[in-house]
């Protein structure tokens, strides 16, 4: 069936043929199409999981969940969502060791984007917890692990589906004793304070993230709320149950009118958000859902951004480029381009994947409604700051980089493209993202 697909940001759609294979054979047969890409739950913000005029393989048919072994190892179909896996694993005392800000991503998508969570500074990205996986390519099926075909194994992380279609993934889960997280919250009046606190104290916590108000100006520029925590043990909390988060009950029913999220409404929201946080609170027990996935409580929240959609700009820079974070926030605050609360966190060691996004240092993510004419040139300017600081922009969020900037940000792109050509010499595997950034050309 032909469907117009976009990413979560609802920009730059294209019409694609969509099929939902449920076996490896079906995937293999589909990979003869001249242009083909896998799609999970569509939570990449840009054009990574669509290919105009081509074939999109919806991975939700690959939905088998194996039993969780006594050592916490589980094999799941690539189309299984983190939500579904948590529903199975939490009652048994296991947690998905890396989850992004939503449970609505497929395991295949988590590998394709090499997602990271609030624990990257301690636990690394998703790749670190994958023991093996099965990848269907136009030239056959590969069983991959860090030991078997390591080049293709690593090239698949962060490659946004361009090395093939994953059928199943074997993961090491994390043992937990309760479904609660003990959270410390601190409020900081400017950016320097919160960054200093994170450098100093993050290593004492498994999870850490700061929300930054990019609309605040002057002395309050970059004021932030820092939340850090770790899983509660059985002894920490009185009601140490192990209940999985439930599906969202609220939804945004229709696309909001254009301009609902404007500098005034966003400034007001940020003000409320900031004031609602305690200045200093220690050891508050929060549920997994509210700590890890606050936005999952509202289905289709992307509709709030109106018919023109939004872009997310997420970049990372090494520690010696930390000034870029300050300059980006200053530039945004000065431009008055509306941006919701931004997310700032520290990254730990990178994994060996050529296209994986995280590298040690800082990452900042911003949600920006499409509309203001100043936004496109502003983000081009931010790209330059990021490149100068030897940083990069996250492909899972991107909908607007250029082929030349992506090459400056991902110096190992050529290495990736050469590996992709070995398993797909005819370049069947492509996407609107790959065409826009010429990712298969290296």
């Amino acid at each position, binding site marked *: 069936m*032909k469907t*117009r697909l976009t990413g979560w*940001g609802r*920009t*730059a*759609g*294209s*019409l*694609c043929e969509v099929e939902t294979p449920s076996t490896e054979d079906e995937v293999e047969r589909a990979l003869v199409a001249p242009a083909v890409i896998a799609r999970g739950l569509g939570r990449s913000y*840009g*054009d990574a999981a669509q290919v*105009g*005029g*081509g074939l999109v393989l919806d991975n939700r048919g690959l939905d088998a969940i194996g039993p969780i072994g006594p050592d916490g190892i589980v094999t799941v179909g690539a189309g299984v969502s983190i939500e579904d896996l948590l529903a199975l694993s939490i009652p048994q005392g296991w947690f998905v060791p890396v989850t992004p800000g939503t449970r609505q991503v497929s395991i295949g998508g988590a590998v394709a984007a090499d997602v990271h969570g609030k624990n990257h500074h301690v636990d690394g990205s998703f790749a670190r917890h994958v023991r093996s996986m099965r990848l269907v390519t136009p030239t056959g099926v590969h069983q991959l692990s860090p030991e078997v075909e390591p080049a293709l194994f690593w090239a698949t992380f962060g490659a946004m589906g361009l090395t093939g279609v994953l059928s199943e993934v074997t993961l090491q889960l994390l043992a937990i004793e309760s479904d609660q997280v003990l959270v410390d919250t601190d409020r900081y009046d400017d950016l320097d304070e919160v960054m200093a606190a994170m450098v100093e104290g993050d290593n004492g916590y498994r999870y850490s993230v700061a929300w930054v108000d990019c609309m605040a100006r002057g002395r309050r520029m970059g004021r932030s709320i820092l939340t850090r925590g770790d899983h509660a043990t059985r002894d920490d909390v009185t009601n140490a149950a192990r209940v999985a988060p439930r599906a969202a009950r609220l939804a945004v029913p229709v696309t909001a009118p254009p301009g609902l999220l404007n500098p005034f409404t966003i400034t007001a929201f940020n003000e409320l958000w900031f004031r609602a946080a305690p200045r200093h609170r220690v050891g508050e027990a929060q549920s997994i859902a509210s700590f890890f996935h606050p936005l999952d409580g509202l289905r289709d929240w992307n509709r709030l951004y109106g*018919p*023109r*959609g939004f*872009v997310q700009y997420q970049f990372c820079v090494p520690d010696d480029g930390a000034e870029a974070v300050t300059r980006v926030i200053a530039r945004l605050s000065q431009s008055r381009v509306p941006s919701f609360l931004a997310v700032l966190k520290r990254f730990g060691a990178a994994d060996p994947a050529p296209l994986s996004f995280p590298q040690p240092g800082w990452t900042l993510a911003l949600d920006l409604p*499409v509309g203001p*004419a100043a*936004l*496109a040139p502003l983000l081009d300017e931010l790209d330059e700051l990021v490149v100068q600081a030897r940083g990069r922009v996250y492909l899972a969020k991107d*909908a*607007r*980089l*250029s*082929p030349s900037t992506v090459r400056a940000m991902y110096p190992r792109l050529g290495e990736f493209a050469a590996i992709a050509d070995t398993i797909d010499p005819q370049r069947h595997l492509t996407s*609107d*993202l790959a*065409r*826009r950034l010429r990712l298969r050309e290296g």
Partner: protein
Amino acid sequence: MENAFGQPQTIVVLGGSSDIARAVVKKLCAARAHSVVLAGRNQALLDEAAAEARDYGATTTHTVLFDATEPLDAARAVSACFEALGEPVDLVIEAVGLLGKQLEYEDDPTMAATMAIVNYAWPVAALSEVRRRLVAQGHGRILVMSSVAAIRVRRISYLYSGAKAGLDRLCDGLADSLEGTGVTLQILRPGFVRSKMTTGEPEIPFTTGVNEVAENVVHGLAGSTRVIWSPPILRYVFFALRHLPGPIWRKVANR
């Protein structure tokens, strides 16, 4: 591929030496456009436009020749453009047009027919092929150069304006036909623009330059509005003019 801000990377221009089209292409090349195909009737002018596109950031340019008095050749010209590019086309600008001084040729039936062919029949034939190819691609934008003159036809230029009126209305239906295909069509209605097409014509209120029009186009492409007016205030001016009683309109139009 076009990005989230409606900035294309690959462009085909039919009528590539049009001053307005050139100004638009310059701005788009300064943003994201890297490959441009310019089609028209004068190789020297196309080469000049191609060099300009490269100056503004295009890395690949091609030119294609065609004769807009031969609508049955339009599909060939469009195919040649798409094939020269060899990758999906993000934006097709249809900017073919012929104005001249009507008083000098309005009694010549051959010229009257030529005006209808160049300003209407050729673009219609070309758009048919463009539509077919972009729909197969599953994405793409079409920008059709109409004119405010299409909204209320003036005595002084009824051959040009009448043909544009036909094209403008046709494109409204054509745009509707693209619903759900991933392809969109936008109609550009500029007012009086200082360009080589209008050299020697007296300027009227709301006259603009090609760069202002290009600015309005780039902004319009970032959104999804069906009609891009330039300057934008003409939307309201022409709402009023369209409803003026005939005798008053003739007085206004003939000034």
